[in-house]
């Protein structure tokens, strides 16, 4: 009766308080059969990495609307790696200017899903990235 569920942490690092998008994504991933750990607002990168470790998640979704993504995202990636969780897939939601997109993808972010992204798109991409990594 072994069962493999995809576990995803959804977190909002930094100081902006708009978590509507994060909640919509959490809900969509739930409806896709995933277990979504929702941590709430104003998380530090350290809190996010610690939660990802304790929960042994497959992916971490960060919602950032504050413009601080170039500081926060590399820090989260660094901490995940330091914890031995380099296999964890990181994706972003929120507002990311076009010029930052290639940089973040280059750092290992698997997807950046801004406003208007269809839920099917990110659900499928996250699932694919996790399953590919698991095999």
């Amino acid at each position, binding site marked *: *009766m*072994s069962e493999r*569920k995809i576990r995803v942490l959804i977190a909002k690092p930094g100081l902006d308080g708009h978590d509507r998008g994060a909640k919509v994504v959490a809900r969509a991933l*739930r409806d896709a*059969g995933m*277990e979504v750990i929702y941590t709430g607002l104003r998380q*530090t990168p350290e809190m996010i990495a*610690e*939660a990802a*470790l304790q929960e042994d998640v497959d992916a971490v979704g960060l919602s950032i609307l504050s413009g601080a993504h170039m500081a926060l995202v590399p820090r989260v990636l660094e901490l995940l790696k330091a914890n031995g969780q380099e296999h964890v897939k990181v994706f972003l939601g929120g507002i990311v200017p076009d010029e930052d997109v290639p940089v973040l993808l280059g750092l290992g972010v698997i997807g950046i899903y801004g406003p208007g992204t269809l839920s099917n798109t990110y659900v499928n991409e996250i699932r694919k990235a996790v399953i590919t990594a698991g095999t």
Partner: protein
Amino acid sequence: MVDLDLAQAVRAGDRLALARTLSHVENNTAEGRSALSSLFAHTGHAHLVGITGASGTGKSSLVNQLARYYRHPGEGELPLRVAVVAVDPTSPFTGGAILGDRIRMRDLAGDPGVFIRSMATRGSLGGIASTTAAVVQVLDAAKFDIILIETVGAGQSEVEIAHLAHITLVVEAPGLGDDIQAIKAGILEIADVLVVNKADLPGVENTERALRGSLDLAHPLPQRIMHHGQLETVSGQDDTAEALEPIWVPPIVRTVAIDGTGIPELVDAISAHRLHLDATGGWVMRERWRLKTELDALLTNELVEGFRSRLPAGAYEDTLEDMLGRRISPFQALEKLVKMVT
């Protein structure tokens, strides 16, 4: 070999190994079973505290405050290592879940003496997951002194936590229902401590009065006290042991979890109950009870799986079709299936 290392790493305090082991156990993998077998001998030390109650009564916030208190206790007391297992429901339609208990536990972040794990029920209906007991065993072996187990938002019949925990806190809040709710069977019967949270809200007097009234009625006889609504399932031997146990009348504690009011009193009540268990042999009794529950669940699962695997291909489905067509009754179907195997 790898599994032995995993178990050793858990014992040595490796948090990543602990997290991975918990996943293996939750997914019921061969690695998980093997790790549990190596770790089991090291279990039985942690104090298992169950927290249950309806949705929105403040269970997660209480867990946050309790964990904080145990990490930073009063003078002369040593801080305890605290693990939290927080259970939220799995959607019966999609299999997905939102696990949101960590939102209320942000005060605990950054403390290496705390480990929080969220779990989905994955189809279990008793308020915890079928693997919660095993997850708790791993945390116990990982040397956590106290394990706070938060159930899903529980109504009236989610009482499985009483089989797992040494002590069950039932959390109520003002304004959730009239006094008839307090005399129904179920969740109030498993309470070792009743917590009236949100005690700063109007109506707290009424809530406490209704609970007190129901407690007076519910505990007239000593042997009913420790049964927790399971009077009919315990064996004769247990009955004797339990009947000798002095009465523990569940205290009612008022708290305001958002600001910590009443938390020292709640911790005192938990400690008093612990002393009571130690003095009366209740600790061992609950251990036996818990392990029996676990063994029974494993046996049932194994027997059902074994039975199904010995049925001829298609027999189960055909029988189901016969029932659907009202050609045979459920009992006749049962007889038919059992005959095929024996």
